[in-house]
């Protein structure tokens, strides 16, 4: 008999490393033609940090992100990034990038201030121009300002940015501690159909809702939610790291034995982006990279319980484990 059930998984996840030393740096250079080169140590492993960091630099400098070239190709030439892990790059490297872009912008304001005979503190960078706030007729294209800085004033328009959160120690009286950059939240709903004769679990629907702070790039955010969802489905239902029999020699050694979900195993994951901007992240961003792979599996296991009344306490919920649990319970 096939039985359906619904389950919910919920999680919170900290962004970045607590305990200090989680450092990232960035360099933003405005070329004499007004285009921008962002050099960062952040490594893009497909999540799209080159796009997101370029967007952030562009936003600060008031230009289109297509005008930002991102260089992150080796650790000798690039500023340091602690790495692409701990859901930290958008937040930590984002803050370093914003810091660098703001410092480069300050140099542009200083130069434009001289050219426009205005106070650098009264300038803004919008629509590819450096303008006096409130007087749009007093403005110069960013390329003209950067060109004058380079060829007229012997100035290098480079901003060096950095972010590293101070470590937080617990208060000796209360134990209170503030260890995280920010926290992201998630709720995932899964609907499954369990075959009580074969033990097979068919995932019918997966709705993944994440509080991402601000979605700097909603399309990339959806991509992370769906990709993490697929990994979590594998963890919940098919990816067995250790063999059923107690010998490492029988562990899976190829992708035929270690079953990564295919197109036939993953439903169209419904990604829901919930925006609750963080108070301290770059443009309100949080990090959700890792939690997208943590939250769906518990929802699926809860859905199996809802369907047939057994708790699968060891992942993945293979047909064998589901059948054994059903046997122990005395049937569905």
């Amino acid at each position, binding site marked *: 008999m096939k039985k359906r059930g619904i389950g919910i998984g919920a999680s919170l996840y900290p962004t970045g490393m607590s305990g200090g030393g989680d450092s990232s740096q960035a360099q933003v250079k405005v070329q004499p033609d007004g285009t921008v080169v962002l050099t960062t140590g952040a490594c893009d*492993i*497909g*999540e*799209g940090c080159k796009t997101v960091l370029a967007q952030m630099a562009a936003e600060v400098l008031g230009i289109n992100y297509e005008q930002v070239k991102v260089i992150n190709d080796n650790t000798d030439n690039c500023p340091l990034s602690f790495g692409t892990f701990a859901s930290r790059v958008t937040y930590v490297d984002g803050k370093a990038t914003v810091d660098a872009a703001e410092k480069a912008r300050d140099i542009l304001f200083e130069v434009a201030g001289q050219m426009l005979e205005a106070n650098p503190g009264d300038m803004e960078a919008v629509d590819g121009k450096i303008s006096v706030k409130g007087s749009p007729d007093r403005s110069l294209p960013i390329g003209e300002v950067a060109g004058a800085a380079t060829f007229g004033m012997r100035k290098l328009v480079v901003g060096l940015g950095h972010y590293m959160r101070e470590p937080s120690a617990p208060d000796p009286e209360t134990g209170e501690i503030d260890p995280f950059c920010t926290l992201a939240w998630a709720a995932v709903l899964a609907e499954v159909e369990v075959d009580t004769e074969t033990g097979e679990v068919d995932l019918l629907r997966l709705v993944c809702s994440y509080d991402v702070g601000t979605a700097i790039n909603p*399309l*990339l955010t*959806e*991509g992370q939610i*769906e*990709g*993490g*969802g*697929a*990994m979590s489905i594998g963890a919940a239902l098919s990816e067995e790291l250790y063999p059923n029999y107690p010998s490492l020699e029988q562990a899976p050694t*190829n*992708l*035929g034995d270690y079953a*990564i979900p*295919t*197109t*036939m195993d*993953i439903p*169209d*994951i419904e990604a829901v982006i919930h925006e609750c901007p963080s108070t301290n992240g770059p443009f309100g961003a949080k990090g959700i990279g890792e939690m997208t792979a943590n939250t769906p599996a518990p929802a699926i296991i809860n859905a199996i319980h809802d369907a047939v009344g057994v708790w699968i306490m060891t992942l993945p919920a293979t047909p064998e484990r589901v059948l054994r649990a059903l046997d122990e319970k005395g049937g569905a």
Partner: protein
Amino acid sequence: MHSLELTVNGRSYQTTVTLKTTLLEVLRDKLFITSPKVGCNSGDCGTCSVLIDDKLVRSCITNALSTQGKEITTVEGLSKPGHLHPLQEAFHEKYGAQCGFCTPGMILAAKALLDENPKPSRKDVREALSGNLCRCAGYGKIVDSVMAAAEQMGQAKN
């Protein structure tokens, strides 16, 4: 060593191989055509997929000498200068490539499908791509991309 002649993306090549050389090794190491990737190198993941005489195969488990005189297509052969193939356009538009490692194989598997079945359902697409693993994108946007390309190619014909 044995002499091998084959055509890749419309261009003829002549090279030498051993009895054990795979087509993937010829493409990547001898002809420097690097869109077919070395993934599992055992026929499980599909990222080495190429078309031989328009049929989808895994080049990592295809003996090079078995392709003597055959026509091979890799994803480099789909685009013309200045013009991407509709599948490439669609993967770009619909964000079908996340990290991009599986993408060449996905696009060729999709091309093999659309050659046979120009109006596939989502289920048809999922079945056709089921031999190509993606580890980071969750497949949904890849299926979206193939559906969009099918529609685009259908309109172009009419």
